[in-house]
């Protein structure tokens, strides 16, 4: 489980996170959305211990080696092949490539014929699938994904969304992800967080939205345009 309490982060005089509080429960998909510059990537960097924070608390019950992550930018190296990339990343995590999982997802992602192709020759969609393959091969218990479907065509977006749901339900992988796509957030998230003005402005789920007879988009606009915080 991931618990973030009263998290504050400033960049000079600019207050990016002004006291973020939330929980990402085990076995659930928690999706964080918010406008550009809301601090989503900063939050992910802090959770992954890549950045210091000024105040608050971040606790992650999963062993750091069992966390798989995707950044907004590509992690895989473009000047080597997919196979070489996967060898490197699994070796760093002190794992051997699980042949069964490897074959299954390589076929599912339709990357078998491109295994020995340099990543620089991949399309954006192929690169995102390759990133997911990397994470899956690391056999994580917790996935932290920063906009995993950004800049992808609708078909690939749907494929990745379905896959994430499957991984969550079949392998009980906890997922914490950010997304700009509100439709996606609503479809995939067991728990939805809206980050605005450096704070979690709304926490809810599909059920709450149904009770309030609101679409997520309406809620999002109400918060972002109104500058509301919880």
């Amino acid at each position, binding site marked *: 489980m991931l618990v973030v309490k009263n998290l504050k982060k400033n*960049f000079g005089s600019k207050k990016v996170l002004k006291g973020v509080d939330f929980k990402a429960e085990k076995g659930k998909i928690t999706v964080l959305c918010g406008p550009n510059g809301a601090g989503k990537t900063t939050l992910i*960097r802090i959770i*992954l*211990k*890549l*950045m*210091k924070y000024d105040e608050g608390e971040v606790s992650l019950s999963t062993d*750091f080696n069992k966390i798989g*992550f995707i*950044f907004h*930018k590509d*992690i895989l*190296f473009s*000047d*080597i*092949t997919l196979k*070489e990339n996967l*060898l*490197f*990343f699994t*070796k*760093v*995590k*002190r794992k051997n490539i699980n042949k069964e999982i490897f074959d299954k997802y390589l076929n599912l992602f339709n990357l078998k014929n491109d295994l020995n192709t*340099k990543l620089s020759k991949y399309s954006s969609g192929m690169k995102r699938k390759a990133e997911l393959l990397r994470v899956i091969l690391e056999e994580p218990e917790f996935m932290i994904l920063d906009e995993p479907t950004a800049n992808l065509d609708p078909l690939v977006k749907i494929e990745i969304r379905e896959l994430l749901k499957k991984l969550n339900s079949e392998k009980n992988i906890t997922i914490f992800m950010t997304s700009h796509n509100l439709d996606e957030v609503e479809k995939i998230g067991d728990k939805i967080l809206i980050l605005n003005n450096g704070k979690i402005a709304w926490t809810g789920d599909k059920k709450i939205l149904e009770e309030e007879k609101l679409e997520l988009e309406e809620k999002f606009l109400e918060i972002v345009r109104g500058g509301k915080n919880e």
Partner: protein
Amino acid sequence: MNRIKALIMKDFFTARNSVKSLLISYTIFLFVLFMMKNYFQRLNDLPDNILIIIAIILFVSMGLLFITTGFMRYIFQESAIGKEEIYFAYGYGVGELCFGKALFFTVLSLVIPYILVLLFFSGLLKTPFFLFNILLILPILFLLISYLVIFLTWFTKLGTAVYFVMFFGVFFLISKVVKKIIKMKLKMNLTTIISIELGIILILFIISYLITKLIKKENLIEKLS
């Protein structure tokens, strides 16, 4: 250690995939050396002159620097797209990252100087001082210089400027020293020379150690992003 091994493996894949440009650098360098064959053979006849040996070692180092120019391309690329964040996220520390890369550079760059030694200075292979320099001093010195250059190029945002100043600065210094040694035929004893060499290594080691200790990766991410 596991992470350093993985890093070297990854860089090896990168080098292998860019084998054409690597072969071009190697070929140019070997061609230049072949053209200077007579000059080297003349030096080969002077196995007892320590300073001549030093001159040879320094000349070999220039080859090493030349070859390394090709490798620095990877550092520029990875630095430009902010790949340090990925390495850090996978648990690499600043020192580990620079050391891994420097070790890879050193191993691959030394291939040519070692071929050169076998080709032109085979007579000197019987000289313990020459072997000591080629097998120990040169790799350590090169490792430390590479470490510093990689660190400064990657993490100071000065990028190519640092690289050119550091590498070509060293290149220039070496050429000057070689010329002086050959011209003046300075007399120095073995102990003094080895002390100077070890002193240089110690100073470079302390600088590298302090830089790594003082700079934390969390601060670098904030600074570079």
